[in-house]
């Protein structure tokens, strides 16, 4: 049974590389039936179109952020799809004339703290549900899954009064303490799947040797669950970075805002050339996540599919 589960969790890796044992087996398979022209029309053409549509907004974002002002809005004299004189003016303006670095720092700080808190709480909860199996653990597991389905859009109104009551309004703590409600259900659910794959025998040995539950968790289970922890960490971090409605509602002073909120509320002014710095802001705001994603693609995919499959 453990093998089966291990396969299930290892599976997302093959999602990216597409070389599961079964697929290797059919490397030739029936594909000789398909001629190149046929593949061109049924496969490469639609795939190409979808990829272009998916990526064009990013290309447009990046291009706009490096276009000089006079080319920004004039599509007739200059070709809109390329520029021969890129400029860093918009990016420099953003970094040195606005509070953008502060917002970036806020986002990073809030995302890191909220993620760390959530992972800590989730590790304990997931371990208890999967391995301590206290009375009613199954029900608690189900309740946590239900909590995952409660969206922030129906919680932000009462939460704003709660945040106000606790005296957290307009402080970074309002976000650091509320984001875990989105993150804990997800990462608990994910980690439960990982903990199940760790052989129970290892824990039994440790118990016989006199280890306490805490020691078992820290010295045996966690080192073995590192891939799961990385997945949970990255996914939580991305969710925090992406969160908008709480940040919009709970934070009112500019110096505490996060990047998504600040761009929408503080960076939009009447200037018709604002598009350059807006796009630069959007691009720089997404870069940290894209870089993180590039390094941990497999973990990210396994987090996403793992959460759906479990």
């Amino acid at each position, binding site marked *: 049974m453990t093998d089966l589960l291990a396969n299930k969790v290892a599976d997302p890796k093959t999602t990216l590389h597409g070389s599961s044992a079964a697929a290797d087996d059919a490397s030739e398979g029936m594909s000789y039936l398909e001629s190149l022209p046929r593949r061109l029309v049924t496969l490469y053409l639609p795939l190409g179109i979808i990829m272009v549509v998916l990526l064009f907004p990013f290309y*447009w974002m990046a291009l706009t952020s490096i276009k000089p002002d006079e080319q920004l809005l004039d599509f007739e004299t200059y070709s*809109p799809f390329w520029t021969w004189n890129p400029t860093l003016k918009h990016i420099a303006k953003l970094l040195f004339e606005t509070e953008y670095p502060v917002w970036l720092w806020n986002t990073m700080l809030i995302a890191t703290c909220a993620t760390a808190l959530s992972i800590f709480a989730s590790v*304990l*909860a997931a371990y208890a549900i999967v391995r301590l199996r206290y009375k009613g653990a199954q029900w608690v597991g189900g309740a*946590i899954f239900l909590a995952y389905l409660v*969206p922030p859009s129906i919680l932000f109104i009462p939460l704003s009064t709660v945040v106000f009551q606790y005296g957290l309004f307009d402080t970074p703590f309002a976000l650091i303490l509320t984001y875990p409600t989105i993150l*804990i259900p997800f990462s608990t659910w994910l980690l439960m799947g990982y903990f199940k794959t760790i052989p129970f025998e290892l824990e039994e040995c440790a118990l016989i040797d006199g280890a306490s539950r805490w020691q078992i968790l820290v010295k045996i289970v966690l080192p073995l669950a590192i891939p799961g922890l990385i997945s949970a960490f990255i996914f939580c971090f991305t969710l925090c970075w992406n969160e908008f409605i709480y940040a*919009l509602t709970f934070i009112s002073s500019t110096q505490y805002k996060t990047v998504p909120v600040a761009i929408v509320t503080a960076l939009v002014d009447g200037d018709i050339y604002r598009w350059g710095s807006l796009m630069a*802001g959007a691009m720089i705001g997404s870069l940290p996540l894209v870089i993180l994603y590039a390094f941990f693609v497999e973990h990210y995919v396994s987090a996403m599919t793992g959460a759906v499959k479990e």
Partner: protein
Amino acid sequence: MTDAVLKSRLDKRPIQEPTAWDRLKVNRNWLGVWFMVPAAAFLILFLAYPLGLGVWLSFTDAKIGRTGEFVGLENYEWLMDDSTFLLSVFNTILYTTVASVIKFAVGLYLALLLNERLPFKAILRAVVLIPFIVPTVLSAIAFWWIFDPQFSIISWSLKKAGLISTNIDFLGDIWNARWSVIFANIWRGVPFVAITLLAGLQTVSPSLYEAATIDGATTWQRFRYITYPLLTPIIAVVMTFSVLFTFTDFQLIWVMTRGGPVNATHLMATLSYQRAIIAGSLGEGAAISTAMIPFLLAAIMVSWFGLQRRKWQQGGDND
């Protein structure tokens, strides 16, 4: 021999009766409670309590800075006569239905394409997910710029191609605005659907397709009678999540249109923000949010039955 060694050791030590504290220390229920404390504290203080408070607020006339009086169903009665609210319900249902159906169709198609033998497969699959990881607000701003009334690159390209003569007013016209935000939502949701369905597709054994081909099945029949039934459980879960997050969407709309023009793109979430936070009537806003709960429950039921069916299909246990 081991027994002998153990015995001699035990003989040397005085035997101690385990105290009540010792017993409690290894009691799994007692330990379980302590392990659950951090998660439970967060979820009760910031999720369960606000959820209940939200329902309570919807029965009061609370305003920002003033706790309300209980007014019964007044907020809901008020909403039933409010054409803006009814319009937002219509918009939300339109938005969710159209976007979810297209996301499912395109996502499944993309997953099937990516499941073929391709050069640069790993890179392609990694790139597909980028729209999903970039913060929604930031890509919504890019769409805002792409849909600009004067300097839209789409209008320009269509004009160059000779298909239209004047700029399209993407976000200023009622139906154009609706289709534009739906398009942006689909754009963001397709990668998630595609990659998760792809993970499901890879568990389907190729020998099933070979057997079906030998039996003379056409491409459509192979999809209809092999791929689709094996994929149903994962489709159920993915689509539940997709519907749930589309239904409660806030970010895209708020950045691109703020509910305009003439409330044509107001969803229930954006309307509740408008009423509760901007206009300050917490009670009314809470009533709008609470009105979303029945729809969400319906989505959860679908997910539940999807999961049940999965267990039954695999004949497995609950692990």
